[in-house]
């Protein structure tokens, strides 16, 4: 392999942990002759090829689409979720943003609700369970009316879209000093509450999703804004404000369910 004069060398301190039962530790590895056009994960691919050559196990990290949309990848680079760039997943972070000789510390997301599986990979299924608790509109296939029957003001649709772009990567939780999932949960609550189709269930949804968020062991929001700053989709803090309002409203206004349905 020819060594390009623009290529850089890095020292990596990578968290290595065999599985969730064992304790982990940092391992120092060299990343040599890294092209500035390579993505961060491509840099790790090369490090892994080296490790495999030496009969060592490669660094395990979640990744898939490598275009910033699937939400699989993510770890801390020098204490910052997805690294130093704003609005960027680690797969879209390119090596041109780093300097020759830099030392980078790579750690998995840290949160009790996200146990480490191996190395930089952790278990974020808690986020799925929050969606499962109410992050949907209860409509069966085949029941829909014509899509244009209910016009939705463009600003509402756009705002709902902004919230709906959350990719569920967990950077918000990882960046929060309290490991709060408020930004993730609120993005879904807000997305659905802004649309007329979602309003029917908005109260129950807010109650159920917040209850699940708490049950998973995430912490409380302290409005530091670190979540939003780390969010690759730049989901705004106002989602959390909206969730709080929805939750209060739901708690105050919740109607008692009448027992029994029709008996026809």
């Amino acid at each position: 392999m020819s060594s390009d004069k623009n290529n850089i060398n890095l020292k990596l301190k990578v968290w290595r942990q065999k599985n969730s039962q064992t304790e982990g530790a940092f391992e120092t590895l060299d990343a040599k002759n890294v092209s500035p056009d390579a993505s961060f994960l491509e840099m790790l691919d090369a490090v892994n090829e080296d490790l495999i050559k030496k009969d060592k196990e490669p660094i395990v990290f979640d990744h898939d689409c490598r275009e910033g949309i699937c939400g699989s990848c993510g770890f801390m680079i020098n204490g910052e979720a997805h690294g130093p760039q704003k609005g960027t997943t680690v797969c879209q972070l390119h090596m041109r943003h780093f300097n020759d000789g830099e030392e980078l510390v790579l750690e998995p997301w840290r949160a009790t609700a996200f146990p480490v599986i191996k190395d930089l990979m952790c278990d974020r299924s808690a986020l799925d369970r929050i969606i499962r608790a109410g992050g949907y509109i209860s409509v069966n296939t085949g029941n829909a009316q014509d899509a244009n029957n209910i016009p939705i003001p463009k600003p509402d649709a756009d705002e709902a879209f902004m919230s709906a772009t959350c990719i569920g990567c967990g950077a918000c939780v990882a960046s929060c000093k309290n490991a709060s999932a408020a930004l993730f949960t609120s993005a879904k609550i807000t997305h659905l509450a802004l649309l007329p189709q979602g309003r029917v269930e908005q109260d129950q949804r807010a109650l159920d999703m917040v209850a699940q968020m708490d049950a998973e062991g995430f912490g409380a929001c302290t409005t530091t804004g670190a979540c939003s700053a780390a969010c690759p989709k730049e989901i705004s803090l106002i989602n959390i404000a909206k969730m709080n309002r929805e939750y209060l409203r739901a708690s105050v206004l919740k109607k008692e369910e009448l027992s029994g349905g029709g008996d026809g």
Partner: protein
Amino acid sequence: MSSVLDSKIPSGSIENKWKDNKFKMKLVNPANKRKHSVIVVGTGLAGASAAASLGELGYKVKAFCIHESPRRAHSVAAQGGINAAKNYQNDGDSIYRLFYDTIKGGDFRAREANVYRLAEASVSIIDQAVAQGVPLAREYGGLLSNRSFGGAQVSRTFYARGQTGQQLLYGAYQAMMRQVDLGSVELNTRREMLDLVVVDGKARGIIVRNLLTGEIESHSADVVVLASGGYSNVFYLSTNAMACAVTAAWRAHKRGSYFANPCYTQIHPTCIPVHGENQSKLTLMSESLRNDGRVWASKIKGDMRKPHEIPDSERDYYLERIYPSFGNLAPRDVASRQAKFRVDEGYGAQGQEAVYLDFRDSINRLGEDKISERYGNLFQMYGKITGENPYKSPMRIFPAPHYTMGGLWVDYNLMSTIPGLFVAGEANFSDHGANRLGASALMQGLADGYFVLPYTVGDYIANTQLKPVKDTDDAFKAGQDSVKNEIQKMLNIKGSRSVESIHKELGRIMWQDCGMSRNKAGLTDAIGKIANLRKTFWNDVKIPGVANEVNTEVEKAGRVADYLELGELMCRDALSREESCGGHFRDEYQVDGEAKRDDDKFCHVAAWEWSGSADKAQTRHVEELKFENIKLATRSYK
């Protein structure tokens, strides 16, 4: 030629086939549905929508995905949009026109009946998505907005900025999670299907590897639905995600499910060019960009000038020149081929393998704000990857493998040649012929999952004697053993080549000889090279670690082993199809750079039957295609 393939296309006029067929189908009564189980492999658009809809009907559904969450499925990355014959724009669209465009777009190599049903379902998909809260783009009046896509002269593409796939996937995912909450769908994540279990000739279960523990598990059911996506990663560099694999489909193929038209692959014209040796994947720039971007190359060979230094008189807006009626919105296969011709002839951007996609004129016309509103996230992504600002200088683009039209053969009911094995979405072959039009993949995945399988799976269950099967039966034990043995065999090789390096080598062979253009010599050569590479793999691959824990190299090795078999079949399929059609372009069969079909000899689907061994040639079966509604004609976008 064999005629074992019964497509089960219903009789009657094209407009009534599906309607009449639905009525004729046998129903399963609600109390009995609970007693029947369905396995769904894959939770992208097709899988998640199928799992949700079948769960709603009352079946016991077990959904499996390779990812940690269904929301990661690669449908999430679809950018531009989804077609539907709503005719909201009043521009003359109709179900029949979408049907016509799709058949023509597929270069007359798709089944009419399936495509018509797809066009019918497209309308309901948009209704369903909006009811689920999918935030599709809207106009100021509050109604849904449309954009144009390639191969159509109407505006029928619905979209959510450049994230349409993401939003539609979340809609289906949320619908499925609701069923998980209600207990009708059991979700199994981080599981990779490694074998299909066939009992008494019927698909009755799957063998999966738990990717966290390495455990090999058995799961039984009355029906198995595969919605495991396409195989573009056979090229190593493609726009597909890293985990996209042919494995689930291939293992089913090896159990008796025929593989149809494997050589039909789509090379997408607008991707970010390759930057270097360590590149792991390619990134698509949505076709929607061709609404406002103009594609060009320099008129001067070997022109090393920067794009802004090249005056208009020296720019060749070749798509507008060659295809005046479709212009920049020529279909993908056509646009890709023309880009390749420019580069082959030496007109590449600054000597590179790239042409330009230029927004200068539309920015001047509409302003930067409007362009940013339409494509902001795509421009941002381009900027991040290349370090260049596409608002200031044109994007450099080049074709890349993106989608595979081929897949497991299915009949009209989406059932494969193995009874009880249904195949949906990109994993099947059915609707796109030899070329898929833009914004039709989302449409097909969701049509299969929401509106076709819920009927046809029920019909199969109602019509079939299904004896009880347990996942501890001998057939499952045998399946487990064969999977375990294969993994152990790979681990024991302890050779010198990494899985990745072999995959890269396979990719280079495929791109070279079975890519945008193919010819007899190249394909023959490739078949030999792939067979050798397969030997290298099984003698010299190196996989660190053990089988019974997280081991990403074991995962990759299994997938590459399958690609090494599929790659050869693709070449054989391409070799035996002595014509050019859609994405399959044989150098020998062309008229002035346009595909030259041979309808007399090749107006058929080729479906391959596994021979029992990778080193023994597979048998080619044929399903004749009949065009009763749309006249076979030379496809022209001029």
